């Protein structure tokens, strides 16, 4: 069954439309990557799904239910989680406090939150080592791990990660993608946003975006096709 359905989504900032009516579906259990250059509308897409931006028109359905009237915090409760562009960790709180806040929407279930914390520390052992450190003092890669870890804390059924690789060395970026793949294997559907084609090997499916529209969907061998990268990313 489809976890997420996006239908004729149009989003704009003021008078300027950024998304010109895009359509896609995310199926349960898959890892999907939304790939495109800067300004293609990737962040706008996930921001609209998370409820940070109000669509001009179109429909977003999560597990079959319309999200139109759901606030961002209500969507987290529903099982939708976004690790935002630029990480946006809480810099003057500790790593553990950041993670605890990730489970805010399910804070009444402390046992589950603790289990989830162990799980996150399993994905990112470095975060466990730095539990009591102020998050703002972490390195860029660690901050990215924290942002993803925090998003996992709410036990989402759909995890969206916006530009995990941004500003990271290739090795660190791969480490984050590998952890993401592990999170997916443990049963979470994942939507990654990337302009780095290095993420492709970790995805089951790629949606290519260009100037606010979806231009191509790649599955299976097509993903690893070098021509695809050349055609759409110039890489």
């Amino acid at each position, binding site marked *: 069954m489809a976890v997420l359905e996006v239908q004729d989504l149009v989003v704009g900032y003021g008078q300027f439309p950024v998304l010109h009516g895009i359509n896609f579906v995310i199926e349960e259990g898959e890892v999907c990557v939304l790939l495109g250059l800067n300004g293609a509308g990737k962040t706008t897409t996930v921001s609209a799904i998370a409820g940070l931006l109000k669509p001009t028109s179109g429909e977003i359905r999560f597990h079959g239910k319309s999200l139109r009237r759901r606030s*961002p*915090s209500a969507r987290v*409760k529903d099982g939708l989680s976004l690790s935002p562009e630029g990480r*946006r960790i809480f810099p003057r*709180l500790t790593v553990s406090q950041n993670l*605890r*806040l990730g489970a805010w929407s399910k804070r009444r279930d402390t046992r589950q939150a603790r289990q989830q914390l162990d799980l996150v520390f399993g994905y990112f052992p470095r975060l466990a080592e730095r539990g009591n450190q102020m998050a703002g003092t972490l390195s860029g890669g660690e901050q990215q791990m924290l942002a993803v870890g925090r998003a996992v804390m709410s036990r989402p059924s759909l995890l969206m990660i916006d530009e995990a690789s941004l500003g990271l060395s290739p090795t660190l970026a791969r480490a984050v993608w590998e952890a993401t793949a592990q999170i997916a294997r443990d049963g979470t559907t994942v939507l990654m946003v990337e302009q780095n084609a290095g993420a492709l090997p970790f995805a089951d499916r790629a949606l290519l975006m260009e100037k606010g529209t979806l231009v191509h969907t790649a599955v299976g061998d097509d993903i690893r096709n070098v021509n695809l990268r050349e055609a759409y990313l110039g890489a």
Partner: protein
Amino acid sequence: MSTLGQELITAAVIGVLQGSIYAMVALGIVLVYRATGVFNFAQAEFGTTALFGAYTAHVVWGWGYAVSFGFGLVVGVVMGLLTEALVIHPLRKASRVTLLVGTAGVALTAIGLQFWKYNETLIMVMPRISDGFHQTKYGSPTDQQLITVAVLVAVTIALALFFRSPWGLAIQAAQQEPVAAELVGINVRSVSLLIWGIAALLGGLAGILAGPNTTFSAAFLSFGAGGALLPGFMAAVLAGMRSMSGAVAGGLVVGFVEQLGNLTLLVDVNGARAMMLFVFLLLVLLFKPSGLFVPRAVTA
């Protein structure tokens, strides 16, 4: 001991007693500043309004003291929540200057209402919780003042504990990264109301506890006999507008510095107390503009 030495100790004792009020006002100012980036002009008026509420309940309606005290606090908190709902939230996208003027408007509205209801009453006195006082070599603290210090200690501890609780963490998260706070499911609006409610509660405590020290009238805690708005603001500046513990320390220090104006040394200087305060603030702003009491990693 020299006379000056004795006078200095007296200034410290009286300064702490008076500074407790400033510290409570400063705590509210810092709390709101961290949340909205705005200096809340209405902070002290939360206190005067709460005092008017307590006075009305106790003296005019004849309610018991404790109930009246609680009623006054409720009045103050309601005013704080209304300020958030009617001014701060609608203006959330406006510039800080607009917000600042907005809070000044709230203060003036409150002062207007106080005048309107009580202009006919010439002398208003809020009775003390207890009338006792303690004669010592270094001034004579009243029970009321000692209770105020005790309340400040309790409030400071309670706030420190609260900021380590889940809701306290949520407040800090919303202040540091509002978008991310929304993304983990924190309702940033509820957090905003919570902050204004707590700030108003602090203001209310300051107002109702300071009220009995003198007679009072409209604008009592802002510019009247209990004037704590400027000293509270100074204390907040000493705390770098960020640190809660710094606000408490700042309040007590400001109380002390103000009392230095009472030294025999300065007996011929008119307005020495205000002068001491402003000279002190000037020096701090010149040499340590980031504030005196600012822990490096502020968590509470």
